């Protein structure tokens, strides 16, 4: 037998199984759609879905009961080992049957329970989603798949608990349930993944066969603990139990379904499912058995003091889940059988009791025991059902609860823990005592005693639809009690065989086991329970005096504290301070780079140094001096700009000195345009910066700056002192003329070898211009517009806008500068120069006009659409590149030819030239657009009409009376 011990029986069974798993999910749409046809149709559709699934399940029952396993497999994530593998064995059959069967009853019940105002379609859709998830859990043969369904039950139960959105208890309960079960789910994920790792497969069928390997693994204990946390959280075991009572804010059908019969049993199911692989160790015994036992006793005690019917039932459920956990924790096959049997029993009587509580709530208008009592005569049917199901819960013979309790006691008395043979039986005794007591309290408190004068509502028996489902369950409980071997025997035995991996021998279930210690204990519990109930009032006083911590408040306090802490932490860390962010980022960069440097070997290179001439030292002094001046005087912004120019100058000189003429040209021309931009912006901004950083911060920043500066200096030094491997630029040098048609290798690299960079670079410029435009175009509106309207110059100004001598000079300079620009453009391919610099030179030439003669005057004479220029530039570059593709060579492949033109001679025409035109156009467009819009913002601030005259003083001009000097204050 391969890794999968279960053979596929037949394809029809496989298909049926797949349909069972799928149907509730697909069916979830049915109520959502059918609600348009009315509430009955909605319920009917839902019921039909569930009934169909149940029928399909039952059709497979005979095979399964015969010991066969039905499987269905579909690959999903084969690489991960997450596949849609389903299998149906007796355990699955029992649970699936319970889920679908009780589901059907709950649907019927809910049809009558839900009020007209409640959106029923949503309710049933959620319910079916839940049902599907639950069925998925019990049918999964893949633990990853199981995890998916597991989490889905948490999610769908979240929706169901919070179904009544207007109730704060519902919201809180839902969130609490989701949090706790979600937490457990994640723990389970970890545990199951580890389990899969140990077993080498995520398929349950494989895992179940690897029990020995699993228990021998060092990872067994962590896996076990993680899995148990998942199971305990889901099955409301201490200390994760507290969510369950608060989940009772859900509509009662949900409580009956999820919180007694099905979802809370998922943890128990998994304990049972993994029993063969995990149980039998000491850790298992103490962890599972211990937690189960404690939960059972503790919850039973609490249940007695709950006045809310559903609260009482919730703690009772916790207690019974504890009992189940305890049974599986004992690790003996007999205990496992008892556990399996009690699962069925508990489902029958507890679901019935929840429905009963719902009926009481529905009809009497309250679930508070202190306001109830004496309803027996008013609601005889409900009372009868309650008496019977409570009897089962208390373990009164001949109800089914009695039998499973006997079996449990039988196992308990044989159990020794911590070397003490009385400890477990004694604790169990307390548990059953209180179980009996709260069961009695439920019945007596609601139905017996004196009739009250008034109830919140006028109680009478519920409609048939509401009492029939619990009645059916009660009948089942009675039938099992009377003829356990007949009604439940085969199923229990089959399931037990699966759970114990065949270790459990066929066990004959019977009501009467003879007169023995467990029977004595059981009877004593019933009597004691009666006594406890009788002395309830006194006990309650003691209980209240104990003042046990309120789990809800603890949870709320914790989550609120967590959320507050999260908020405080987040806002303390992300305080919005760029200075902090920048410091952290820069410090990280410096540290990371240094860490990289010191963590690998470094050998100082042997490249000889070049002696520095005096002029270089002077330049260095200028650089350091200028930099120091800016750093020290950065608060005075205008001065800083002047000093920045010194640095730009030195950098340009450096490039000249170090044989980089193109860089020098670019640096020089970019510098001035940048300064112009900064000056235009500075006009509208504060001229000084206030002192804001304390000495500490300045010291800190200075330290980082020093460290970063040293790092950069060190890196530069290290690079300059080594030869390094041959650069790829050798190729560029050798092929510049022959392959790129130019002798200025830098330019050929720019427009040819790495023309794509340049293409991207002009796009960056273009986008910058677009963004600048978008920013400035709206500057006249809103807060900014108001601020501009109120703006007054913050410095004294001369009234003269356009000095005559300047205007005259720039008129002469314009054509000269344009010639220079054209020249620089043309020679770029062979000598220093090129499109970018040419574009800047032309821009500067034009800007001179703008500065001298005024923005409006100059702009009228240069009606160029800057957007168009940018768009054209980018397009021209792109089209040049594309042209190559027409000839089947890659984008941007260049071509050049020396074309003889009459009179002019051989002219080198290169496609790179066309590309460079694109570059130049973009540059001009960008610079002009940016300054154009910046200056128009300034004009808006000035609020004076633009001057029509290019110069203020012009003695040759026929003078017309003109308005007073703009915005100026005459001397």
């Amino acid at each position: 037998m391969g890794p999968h011990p279960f053979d596929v029986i037949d394809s029809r069974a496989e298909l049926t199984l797949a349909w069972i798993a799928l149907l509730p999910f697909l069916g979830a749409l049915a109520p959502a759609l059918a609600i348009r046809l009315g509430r009955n149709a909605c319920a009917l559709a839902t019921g039909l879905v569930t009934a169909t699934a149940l029928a399909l399940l039952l059709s497979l029952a005979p095979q399964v009961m015969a010991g066969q396993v039905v499987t269905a497999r579909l690959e999903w994530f084969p690489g991960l080992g997450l596949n849609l593998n389903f299998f149906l064995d007796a355990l699955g059959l029992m649970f699936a049957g319970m889920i679908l069967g009780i589901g059907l009853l709950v649907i019927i019940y809910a049809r009558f329970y839900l009020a007209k105002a409640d959106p029923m379609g949503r309710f049933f859709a959620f319910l079916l989603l839940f049902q599907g998830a639950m069925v998925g859990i019990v049918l999964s043969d893949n633990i990853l798949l199981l995890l998916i369904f597991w989490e889905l039950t948490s999610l769908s139960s979240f929706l169901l608990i919070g179904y009544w959105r207007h109730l704060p208890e519902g919201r809180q309960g839902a969130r609490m349930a989701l949090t706790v079960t979600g937490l457990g789910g994640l723990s389970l994920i970890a545990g199951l993944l580890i389990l899969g790792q140990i077993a080498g497969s995520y398929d349950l069928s494989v895992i179940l066969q690897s029990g020995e390997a699993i228990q021998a693994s060092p990872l067994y204990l962590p896996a076990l603990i993680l899995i148990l946390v998942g199971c305990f959280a889901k099955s409301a075991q201490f200390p994760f139990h507290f969510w369950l009572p608060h989940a009772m804010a859900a509509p009662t059908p949900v409580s009956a379904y999820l919180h007694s019969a099905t979802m809370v049993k998922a943890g128990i199911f998994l304990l049972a499912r993994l029993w063969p692989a995990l149980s039998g160790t000491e850790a298992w015994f103490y962890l599972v058995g211990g937690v189960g036992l404690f939960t059972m006793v503790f919850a039973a005690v609490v249940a007695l003091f709950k006045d809310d019917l559903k609260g009482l039932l919730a703690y009772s459920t916790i207690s019974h889940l504890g009992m189940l956990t305890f049974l599986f924790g004992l690790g003996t096959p007999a205990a496992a059988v008892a556990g399996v049997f009690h699962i069925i029993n508990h489902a029958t009587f507890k679901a019935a009791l929840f429905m009963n509580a719902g009926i009481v709530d529905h009809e009497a208008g309250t679930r508070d025991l202190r306001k109830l009592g004496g309803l027996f005569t008013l609601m005889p049917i409900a009372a009868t059902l309650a008496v019977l199901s409570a009897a089962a819960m208390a373990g009164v013979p001949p109800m089914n609860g009695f039998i499973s309790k006997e079996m449990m006691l039988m196992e308990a008395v044989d159990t020794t823990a911590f070397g003490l043979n009385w400890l477990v039986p004694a604790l169990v005794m307390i548990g059953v005592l209180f179980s009996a007591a709260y069961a009695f309290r439920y019945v007596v408190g609601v139905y017996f005693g004196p009739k009250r004068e008034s109830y919140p509502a006028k109680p009478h028996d519920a409609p048939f639809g509401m009492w029939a489902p619990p009645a059916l369950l009660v009948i089942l409980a009675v039938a099992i009690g009377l003829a356990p071997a007949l009604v439940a025997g085969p199923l229990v035995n089959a399931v037990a065989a699966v759970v114990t991996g065949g270790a459990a021998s066929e066990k004959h279930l019977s009501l009467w086991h003879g007169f023995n210690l467990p029977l004595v204990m059981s009877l004593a519990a019933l009597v004691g329970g009666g006594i406890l109930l009788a002395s309830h009032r006194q006990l309650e006083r003691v209980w209240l005096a104990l003042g046990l911590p309120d789990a809800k408040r603890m949870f709320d306090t914790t989550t609120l504290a967590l959320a507050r802490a999260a908020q405080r932490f987040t806002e303390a860390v992300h305080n919005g301070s760029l200075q902090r962010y920048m410091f952290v980022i820069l410090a990280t960069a410096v540290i990371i780079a240094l860490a990289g440097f010191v963590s690998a070997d470094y050998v100082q290179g042997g490249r000889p140094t070049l002696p520095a001439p005096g002029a270089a030292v002077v330049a260095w002094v200028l650089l350091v001096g200028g930099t120091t001046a800016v750093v020290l005087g950065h608060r005075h912004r205008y001065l800083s700009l002047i000093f920045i120019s010194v640095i730009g100058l030195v950098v340009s000189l450096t490039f000249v000195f170090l044989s980089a003429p193109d860089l020098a040209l670019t640096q020089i021309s970019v510098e001035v345009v940048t300064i112009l931009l900064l000056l235009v912006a500075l006009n509208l901004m504060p001229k000084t910066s206030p002192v804001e950083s304390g000495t500490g911060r300045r010291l800190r920043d200075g330290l980082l700056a020093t460290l970063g500066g040293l790092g950069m200096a060190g890196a530069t030094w290290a690079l300059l002192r080594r030869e390094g491997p041959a650069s790829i630029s050798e190729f560029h040098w050798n092929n510049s003329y022959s392959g790129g048609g130019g002798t200025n290798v830098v330019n050929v690299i720019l427009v040819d070898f790495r023309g794509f960079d340049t293409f991207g670079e002009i796009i960056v410029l273009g986008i910058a211009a677009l963004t600048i435009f978008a920013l400035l175009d709206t500057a006249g509106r809103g807060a900014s517009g108001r601020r501009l309207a109120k703006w007054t110059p913050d410095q004294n100004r001369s009234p003269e806008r356009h000095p005559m001598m300047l205007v005259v000079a720039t008129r002469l300079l314009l054509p000269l500068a344009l010639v220079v620009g054209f020249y620089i453009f043309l020679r770029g391919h062979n000598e220093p120069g090129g499109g970018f610099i040419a574009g800047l030179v032309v821009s500067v030439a034009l800007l001179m006009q703008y500065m001298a003669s005024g923005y409006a005057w100059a702009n009228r004479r240069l009606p160029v659409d800057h957007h168009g220029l940018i768009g054209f530039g980018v397009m021209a570059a792109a089209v040049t590149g594309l042209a190559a593709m027409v000839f089947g060579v890659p984008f941007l492949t260049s071509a050049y030819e020396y074309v003889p033109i009459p009179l002019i001679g051989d002219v080198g025409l290169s496609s790179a030239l066309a590309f460079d035109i694109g570059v130049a156009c973009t540059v001009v467009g960008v610079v002009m657009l940016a300054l154009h819009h910046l200056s128009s913002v300034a004009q808006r601030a000035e609020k004076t009409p633009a001057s029509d005259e290019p110069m203020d003083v012009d003695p040759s001009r026929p003078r017309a009376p003109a308005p007073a000097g703009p915005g100026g204050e005459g001397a």
Partner: protein
Amino acid sequence: MIEIAVLFTISCVGLAMALNLWRLAKGPTQADRILALDTMTINAIALMVLMQIQQGSAVYFEAALLLAMVGFVGTVAYCKFLLRGDIIE
């Protein structure tokens, strides 16, 4: 001989630039600073030309030419800022 002359001149210009820096830092008026910067730019042009003579290579003229042009524009802009605030109006 030319080498020595060039070296001498470079030293003179370098010294001149250092003096410019001194004036730039000292001020006291803004106009002084602009003037110092402008002078420094012109000295830088001289330095570039001298470097070319020293290196015997004529590829740096455009840099000098451009520096002359933008130096002027920059100085005008700085002055205009003092005069009007708005340099392009």
